């Protein structure tokens, strides 16, 4: 027996005091930096998008670990990952210029999974950031939109286009 799913609704404009957390984009130190902007179909930066990241560790492990929102038991404040475990999860909101930034390790399986939420987006979207071309990006049309562009040592640029000529490839899982 299967049950019909609860429908999605937009994250709206007011998630900013609830979902982003301090250090949300700092998965690891000493690894790579990936950053970029989110754009709409008119080419305007999207200042109210929320990006979530899920990835394997440097060794390819997908076990993750709890503690992305580790809390101070006294004040309740988020004090961040303790750093000994790799949680594999990150969350960042875009700034007024649609920009976001992630500090992490290069995933052992080659890609970082991305889930995109935004005001105006009624149902989230999945995509991926690849650090180099591979069988998947080579096998699909517009696969280049999934490739991060090296900018300097350890720093990659990856822009996300929700719509338009440069529209990013979005994924579905059956």
């Amino acid at each position, binding site marked *: 027996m299967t049950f019909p799913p609860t429908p999605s609704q937009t994250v709206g404009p007011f998630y900013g005091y609830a979902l982003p957390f301090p250090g949300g984009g700092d998965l690891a130190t000493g690894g790579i930096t990936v950053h970029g902007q989110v754009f709409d179909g008119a080419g305007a930066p999207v200042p109210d998008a929320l990006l979530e990241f899920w990835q394997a560790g440097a060794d390819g492990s997908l076990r993750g670990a*709890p503690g992305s929102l580790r809390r101070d038991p006294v004040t309740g404040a988020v004090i961040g990952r303790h750093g000994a475990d790799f949680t594999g999860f990150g969350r960042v909101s875009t700034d007024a210029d649609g920009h976001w930034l992630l500090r992490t390790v290069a*995933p052992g399986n080659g890609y970082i999974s991305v889930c995109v939420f935004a005001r105006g987006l009624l149902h989230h979207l999945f995509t991926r950031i690849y650090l180099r071309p591979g069988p998947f990006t080579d096998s699909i049309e517009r696969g280049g939109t999934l490739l991060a562009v090296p900018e300097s040592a350890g720093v990659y640029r990856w822009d996300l286009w929700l719509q338009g000529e440069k529209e990013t490839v979005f994924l579905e899982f059956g």
Partner: protein
Amino acid sequence: MLTQDDIDREIAEWPEPPEPSGHPRRDYAPYRSSVLRHPKQALVAVKDPDAAELRGPVFGVTDVTALDADLTRQHAGEPLGERITVEGRITDRRGRPIRGQLVEIWQANASGRYPHQIDDHPAPHDPNFSGVGRCLTGEDGSYRFTTIKPGAYPWRNHHNAWRPAHIHFSVFGSAFTQRLVTQMYFPGDPLFPYDPVLRSVTDAAARERLIAAYDHTLSQPEWSLGYRWDIVLDGPAATWTES
């Protein structure tokens, strides 16, 4: 000026059939903000049984505190409004409970105001209410929050647009594919027919799944009114094998 009548007509005459899943289509013009923010290319299907998205992030006891699930106790004083509890179970489409996963909520206060700079409509803030909650699901997939019933509020989709009272929910499944952000509504709200966000779910039966049930057995004497809202997560998950 774009009127409610214009939006009502667009909703009534919306030409696309509902998605079989019941999820909203991303291109739903009565919700004007969707127009430039939905992809026009088809989604690409991933068939890889080792896809990372078939697993997902995990959370634990360090990620929440005991106070997170009671939004009425997060400040020195008590918030104004109608005290409620909201509880339910989170399962996958096969009815299996989602255990130990993170549920996050956010909402307006009883006057319909969010503590956010861009919400500038003239309703009072409540210094005793932040409107943010978190909890982990139990072994049976259950969650529970104590909060205040949020107020309806105006927005600028069209002239005289009002959102029905709702609580935003963010839920993690056992796989990243099952991720869900949605909104819970309250039964009998007179604003339902006018709201293009709710009406973006064009299947009537699917819309009902966004509306909590008042449950008198969950109400507590002299204290709070109880609502039940169960959540079913879409999407496949890997069968975990020890490696």
